């Protein structure tokens, strides 16, 4: 008997201990909580930084203007370390412990996949930003980043205009490269472009001249390399080294001050597809997004002392889309919120004018993108 008692006592005390691990669940219902999963460490941490700043500025702007339906927004952010498993845990925590109405963030395709999987299982909307291509089954996931399709077809549009028809692909080993390669193959015929060859490279490699030398033998007029950050800069540098004076198209993720610093000194033409936020001054007053972009840029500059960039703008759009959805439904129900976001129409954001529908969870158009290049160490609009 004594034995049973001891066992029971221990089990009960264990349960008490785990009470701590439950955390404080009941909190004031007042703010709308938005879960934010963002790479703050790991190889994309620099990107996460911009996303975080963008989201914070937008939330502040909305709250200063009185919030949504009289309730403020609150960000609950977690670092996904660019790892799917970590992201899955965070997504689950956000939904069942923090009680968020929606999630946003990610930044890498694999983390998006993990978060999307949780979002659709738990039926909570997720507005992600990455090159992740959505499938029909993922009814609770939105991707407000410009689809990789646009980022590939936009420069192809420009090439056709300039009479460039021979293009080589140099894709990173990784999700972005796989995606970019597939899409480029799909769209090339539309713009009368011949893909003369394709090579892969490891984003951590210290040198890619081997691949470039191989491609050079095929006489391409431009190279498309769907890669972001350091490897993109390394490509530009290696091309300069080899005297390959042809345009290099890199991914739309590069429209950041960080990347500008990396390639500012490198000769050669680097083309970065981007959103209109990178060219605030050149926007026509009639442009529907001008007001949003200018206001956001001003607030961002005031808070962080640096110009807003593509990533921060994109993240701000995610906040705005969720806020707009909440405003329309006036409810905390995630399914209703999903429906509301899905019905967003003519909604101007930094990335363009969003028109969502049950079949289009991305909302923007190819024309919402612009092409940037670097002149005198500064961003310049190419097309």
């Amino acid at each position: 008997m004594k034995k049973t008692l001891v066992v029971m006592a221990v089990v009960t005390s264990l349960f008490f201990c785990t009470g701590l691990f439950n955390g404080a669940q009941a909190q004031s219902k007042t703010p709308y909580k938005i879960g934010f999963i963002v790479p703050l460490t790991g190889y994309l941490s620099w990107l996460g930084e911009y996303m975080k700043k963008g989201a914070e500025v937008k939330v502040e702007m909305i709250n200063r203007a009185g919030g949504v339906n009289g309730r403020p927004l609150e960000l609950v952010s977690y670092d996904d370390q660019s790892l799917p498993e970590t992201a899955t845990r965070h997504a689950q925590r956000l939904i069942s412990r923090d009680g968020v109405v929606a999630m946003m963030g990610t930044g890498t395709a694999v983390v998006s996949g993990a978060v999307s999987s949780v979002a659709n299982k738990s039926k909570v909307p997720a507005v992600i930003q990455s090159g992740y291509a959505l499938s029909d089954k993922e009814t609770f996931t939105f991707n407000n980043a410009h689809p990789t399709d646009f980022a590939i077809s936009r420069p192809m549009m420009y090439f056709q205009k300039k009479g460039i028809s021979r293009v080589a692909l140099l894709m990173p080993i990784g999700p972005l490269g796989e995606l970019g390669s597939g899409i480029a193959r799909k769209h090339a015929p539309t713009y009368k472009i011949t893909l003369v060859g394709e090579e892969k490279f490891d984003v951590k490699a210290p040198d890619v001249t081997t691949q470039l030398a191989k491609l050079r033998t095929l006489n391409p007029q431009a190279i498309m390399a769907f890669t972001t950050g350091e490897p993109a800069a390394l490509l530009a540098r290696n091309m300069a080294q080899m005297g390959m004076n042809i345009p290099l198209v890199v991914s739309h993720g590069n429209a950041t001050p960080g990347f500008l610093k990396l390639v500012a000194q490198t000769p050669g033409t680097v083309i970065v597809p981007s959103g209109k936020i990178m060219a605030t001054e050149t926007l026509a007053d009639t442009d529907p997004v001008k007001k949003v972009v200018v206001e956001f840029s001003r607030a961002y500059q005031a808070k962080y002392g640096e110009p807003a960039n593509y990533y921060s703008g994109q993240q701000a759009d995610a906040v705005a889309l969720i806020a707009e959805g909440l405003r329309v439904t006036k409810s905390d129900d995630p399914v209703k919120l999903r429906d509301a976001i899905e019905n967003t129409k003519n909604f101007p954001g930094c990335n363009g004018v969003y028109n969502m529908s049950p079949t289009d969870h991305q909302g923007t158009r190819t024309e919402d993108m612009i092409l940037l290049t670097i002149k005198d160490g500064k961003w310049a609009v190419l097309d």
Partner: protein
Amino acid sequence: MRRLGRYWWIILLLFIALYPPTLGGMSAYKSGVLIFVGIYIILAVSLDLLMGFAGQISVGHAAFFAIGAYVSGILTAKYGASPVLALIAGMALSGAVAWGVGRPVLALKEYYLAMATLALNEIIVTLIIGLQWLTGGASGLRDVPAFSVPGFSFDNHVHYYYLVWAMVLLVVGSSVAVARSPFGRTLIAIHSDETAAKTFGIDCARYKVRAYVLSACYASLAGSLFAHYMGFLAPDDFGVMTSINILVMLYLGGIGTIYGPALGAVFLKLLPEFTYQFQDYELLMNGIILIVVLVFMPRGLFGILTGIKERVFARSAR
């Protein structure tokens, strides 16, 4: 107290079984954390059989974790196979790979062995990325269905929690049985002194390979459980960092004790639940915690627990 020491496993069983119902509506988050904990317990315990008992260093255990996960993922998501069959197929393939590379690789010692196993991990990961048509490549494999047996689907997270923990108990229990058996004793002899072991007729190479195969099968099981829970697989989760994490669990908990590595897995997988708010400081903190454990607790957390137990018993005996 002595009673408690003897019946602790009943307590543990009751706790595991009663946790979800008593704490009512166990949330997806809580069950998620505990499911990951369980999966890593299986990984840590399986590596302990190889490292703690057979004494063979592996810095590439995630290779078998990956094989299990991807065989389950591919067979169920792409070919609609039964998850149970896929799980067995994963274990068979892991075992076969371990058997195939085991003899030459395990002939290496210490750092050479560490390098070779690390390379094995990299090879598996680069193959997963490279064989995109099969594995989904770096973009990941989507839509892995929930685990099911004919007539029952574990699509509810509480059900899956029970499934995973049943497997944990099975693996831990069988590992303890193996470790305490003459087979486990033979491994200890090989670990202590291969030359001396050989002079007693122990075919070291064969026993090392057997331990490796068993360890790989368990890791593969963990991989299959992981695949069905995640629903989405990407190579990022199976890199050398994962292998190193498992290695860390061993030393954190106390290598060569089975329960120690399990404890290490619990600790290391629960730790982020408390340190995530430190964000930029997390990396530094994790490093420091580990250093402190290694310097001040060479027998790991389990060593501390048994130390306390011994002290308590000594006192009550007095």
